[in-house]
């Protein structure tokens, strides 16, 4: 089997004789006209899809970063103590025992535990201060009192102070 230069001089003949492949009459002339007609039509530019543009991608990336930063900032703000509210709780908790129930109405549910804790701490601290004052008084008074009296006086307060 030898291929020869006649192949591309008359490929139509060769393909028909060996492979039985044929073309319509004047096909290549018509095809040429069709092609020339088609190339004269300007190429339609495909509409660019916005979400494929680089600008859109950058915008998305920037938005994601902003959202993350916002999330972190909000989380940070939630964890920092609200000083004004803390001060309010302290003030209300420091009030008289009689006003405790009324004052608790001004405290929100989520802060009620804080309010009670603050009240308890304040009460204990107040008591401790009073006891301390008494302690000081004991020593001052001891200058003028007998030892026996001091012993009985000290026992109760001293033990109380230890417990507190």
């Amino acid at each position: 089997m030898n291929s020869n230069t006649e192949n591309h001089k008359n490929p139509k003949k060769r393909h028909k004789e060996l492979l039985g492949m044929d073309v319509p009459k004047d096909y290549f002339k018509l095809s040429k006209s069709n092609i020339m007609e088609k190339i004269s039509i300007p190429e339609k530019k495909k509409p660019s899809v916005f979400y494929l543009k680089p600008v859109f991608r950058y915008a998305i990336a920037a938005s994601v970063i902003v959202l993350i930063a916002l999330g972190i900032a909000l989380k940070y703000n939630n964890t920092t103590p609200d000083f004004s509210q803390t001060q309010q709780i302290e003030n209300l908790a420091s009030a008289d025992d009689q006003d405790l129930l009324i004052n608790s109405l001004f405290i929100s549910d989520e802060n009620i535990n804080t309010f009670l804790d603050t009240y308890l701490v304040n009460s204990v601290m107040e008591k401790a201060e009073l006891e301390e004052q008494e302690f000081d008084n004991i020593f001052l008074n001891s200058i003028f009192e007998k030892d026996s009296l001091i012993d009985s006086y000290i026992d109760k307060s001293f033990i109380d102070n230890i417990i507190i």
Partner: protein
Amino acid sequence: MLSSNLILKYIALIAEANFIQQFTHPKTKEKAFLKLLDTYQERLYWYIRKIVITHENADDALQNTFIRIYRNIDSFKGNSSFSTWMFRIAHNEAIRLLQKQKKMHLASLEDIQPQYLEDLTQDNYFDGDEVKLKLHRIIESKLTNKQRMVFNMKYFDDLSFREMSEILEMNENTLKSSYYSATKIIEEEIIM
């Protein structure tokens, strides 16, 4: 003294460079394109036809090929000859058409699996007798996809192994080996 082959090659290169220059210039582009059509239209058609089998498919692919050539001349970098560049476009268009028709799943040479004989016998422009059908049967069933491509390109399209290597992006020696295997198989089968 240069051999005649080298001289011919040199002349061909000069002619090609001149042609490309005309093709890229707006005033002479259309004239150059008409000349291109006259020279390569039929060759490209038969090349495509043997891949897609039917005349209708070949016509579609051929038109798409030339439109693509016309519109993408600027993308020709000169890494290969202009003709092999065109053949590569034609090859890709043929594959693309078959893929679109869902007759194959992958776009590589090795995965070409057209419904060869079925399409051939149903084609209005197939005028083959039993002998021709036998040759087709041998090409379709006895040769591998690569052997079939190489045989068609060498025997019917008269492309050199170098040109084939550029079009198919395959090693020249591999192509030679495929071709000689194909011719041996066909000779043996035809004699039987």
